[in-house]
């Protein structure tokens, strides 16, 4: 008897669901094993994780709030990935969006909400989108690989943000902490009906609907799909490939920038280095888990946000290192990617011939 790999003639029916479920079980088991290796109770740890993320009302609200920036970044990343533009620069575009919004909030501290909030949205989208034009320009004019350029630009954006909060924008009375002055009340996105859930959620819903409609029903969406499916055929069909690259980068930059704005304004109420929590990278995992579908991205974002919140709980209660969350995130992504192999192949047991 030995194992052999056989290609499926038809893709596994309902495969993506089973694969996702299987990959989750697999990665959670490994995580439990890792907990056990540290001398913690494996099942207890998973329970603490679950309870910390979804188990109580305040935990659920935390998870929903964390899924907002992850969702917006994931949406943007998915648009670019649809065209096989591997933009991993959502993190940097998020930072630039936060910077853009903060500029508007600090420049017009007296302005009413009706003026300053739209201005902040415009500045965040513009800053994020314009920042994403740099790799677009590098790719279309100089044929620079966008994976490398977007990754490196992330560091530039984060350092630029750091420079601002440590330097020109630093609040005088912050006792040396790197942070700007608190935003005026007008520049803070408020809670819905007095709850901790803020209006950024509504922005997510609107953005999700827009992106869904754009991908599904518009000519732009069709051209993105065709260009991502076969670049040569899209050139044959005279699709404006370069313009499409600029467009997807701008959309992704604007969405990630908006995420930066919401996180800065609604959650922290000021700009400080802690807004950079790696949502732009988690967004890549989210987009991929959700197979670039705007609706399932919401689920994946909620799930990974829950993981982040739950791991914080795990840190507190079981003294697990903070990196454990990153390890789990990586495990889930790798298991899902590896699991997709079973969509087109299966492993067969067979007897050795002869």
């Amino acid at each position, binding site marked *: 008897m030995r194992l052999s790999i056989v290609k499926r003639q038809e893709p596994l029916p309902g495969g993506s669901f089973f694969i996702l479920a299987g990959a989750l079980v697999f990665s959670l088991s490994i995580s439990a094993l890792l907990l056990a290796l540290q001398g913690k109770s494996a099942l207890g740890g998973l329970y603490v994780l679950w309870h910390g993320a979804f188990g109580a009302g305040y935990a659920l609200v935390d998870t929903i709030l964390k899924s907002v920036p992850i969702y917006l970044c994931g949406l943007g990343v998915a648009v670019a990935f649809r065209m096989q533009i591997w933009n991993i620069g959502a993190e940097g575009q998020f930072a630039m969006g936060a910077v853009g919004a903060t500029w508007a909030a600090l420049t017009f501290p007296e302005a009413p909400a009706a003026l300053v909030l739209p201005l902040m949205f415009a500045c965040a989208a513009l800053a994020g989108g314009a920042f994403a034009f740099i790799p677009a320009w590098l790719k279309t004019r100089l044929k620079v690989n966008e994976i490398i350029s977007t990754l490196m630009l992330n560091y530039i954006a984060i350092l630029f943000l750091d420079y601002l909060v440590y330097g020109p924008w630093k609040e005088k009375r912050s006792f040396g902490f790197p942070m700007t002055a608190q935003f005026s009340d007008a520049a803070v996105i408020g809670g819905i009906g007095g709850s901790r859930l803020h209006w950024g959620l509504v922005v997510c819903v609107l953005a999700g609907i827009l992106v869904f409609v754009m991908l599904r029903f*518009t*000519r*732009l969406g069709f051209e993105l799909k065709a260009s991502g*499916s076969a670049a040569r*055929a899209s*050139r044959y069909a005279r699709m404006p490939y370069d313009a499409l690259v600029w467009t997807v980068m701008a959309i992704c930059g604007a969405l990630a920038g908006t995420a930066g704005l919401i996180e800065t304004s609604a959650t922290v109420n000021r700009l400080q280095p802690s807004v950079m929590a790696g949502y732009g990278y988690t967004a890549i995992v989210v987009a991929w888990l959700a197979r670039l579908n705007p609706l399932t991205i919401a689920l994946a974002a909620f799930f990974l946000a829950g993981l982040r919140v739950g791991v914080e709980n795990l840190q507190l209660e079981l003294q697990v290192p903070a990196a454990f969350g990153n390890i789990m995130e990586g495990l889930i992504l790798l298991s899902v990617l590896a699991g997709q192999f079973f969509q087109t192949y299966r492993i067969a047991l*067979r007897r050795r*011939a002869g």
Partner: protein
Amino acid sequence: MDRVADITVVRLEGISKSFGAVKANDAIDLDIRAGHILALLGENGAGKSTLMSILAGRFRPDAGRILVDGRETVLSSTKDAIRAGIGMVYQHFMLVPTMTVAQNVLLGQEGGFWLNRGRMEARVAELAEFFGLAIDPAATVSELSMGERQRVEILRLLARDSRVLIFDEPTAVLTPPEIVHLFAALKSMANRGKAIVFISHKLEEVLSLSDDIAILSRGRVVDRVETRVVCSKAELASRMVGREVFLEVEKEPLPPGEVVLEMSGVTGFGLKEVSLTLRQGEVLAVVGVAGNGQKALVETVTGFRRPATGKVNILGREWTEFFRNPDWKHALAYIPEDRLGLATCPNLDMVDNVLLTTRQGFTRGPFMEHGRARQVTADMVRDFDIQPARIATPAGKLSGGNLQKLVLAREFYRAPRLIVAEQPSQGLDVKATEEVWRQLLAARACAGILLVSGDLSEALQLADRIAVMFRGRFMDVFPVSDTAKVEAIGLAMAGVGAGH
């Protein structure tokens, strides 16, 4: 029979294979005999590729038996097939371009841990000489021509002592001299006892090469005949499609209309002083050995390569102006040689592939009219008899003929005034070729057609005028009725003759 061997190496009994509702193979019986060249003929989608994939161990049959040397054998992987002595040369070669011929041939069977380059090369050289396959074992594969690469593939099978060698349309990528070379090698291998299976659409090749012919249609072997009793291509063609097809299409000359394409003195990128005038209602065929500037000509006319010097006018507008924002309708349609990689997206369904070049016609504001696109695609599928008729089928799952019909249906929907058709019937069976030819001739009513073909009979059937291309230059342009010049096309293609 004066062959070295006449024994059945592989016998197929009642092989059946279905994909969903489609019976790709239906109770096929076939004997593959040592020392014989068996030709497998059939339309696109007749089940040839499925049958050969079963033999090569890539598919398992749903029913039936495979007997190797009289013993029932299960081929559940390509390794099993290789072990049983069955090897396949695919249309797309599977070689490591950066390695040498000898390394490629002996890949995976070097024996020990240490490689001995000299001994490997000596072994490959010996093998090559024995079977008459001239090749330098030390050459790097990336530097070889397609014909030489094919020889490497063959040697790889021979080095594994394959006794049955299957060739899937082996001449499609070869130049005429390489085809002669290949045929000599195939005959030499058969004489040394190998069983050869040769899949082809080209009737004359089958007639000149094979010992036996098996004709497949709709998954069944419908006819089996010894080649020496077949007297003509016409007879073979009629056996193949089950009715008399002489591969002649009726062509009524149309009165030439206005000029749709005019080139004068176009030079550069391999073109030399190319000038031509094409009018609505006529077909101008550009013939020549591949690689003599046809590609540059097509790319220039279709707007993908700016002419370096000289003038190109399309539909009365200068090249730059025309391609600044070409209309999707009543303008230019291009039917490329590469149907799957260039003309269509393999993973997208038929509707999306129809939208590929017609999307401007299905746009309302920023939105696409997907419903109407589905309706139009369904109409195309019906009018052009595309199989399978399910419009959600991805283009990559269509057979060559059906894919070409989809491309034609889409491009004709654009009501073009200028059509550039590149090898439109390449790789198609007789029936599909005939349909494609009829469609092209019908399209002349509104358009001028620039036909670029390596198939002389196609050019003669369709064209009003013929341009012979050699080293980037038109050697001569003449009406197809000029029998003296038609006779001398071969010379002109070789660079000899008038027109300087």
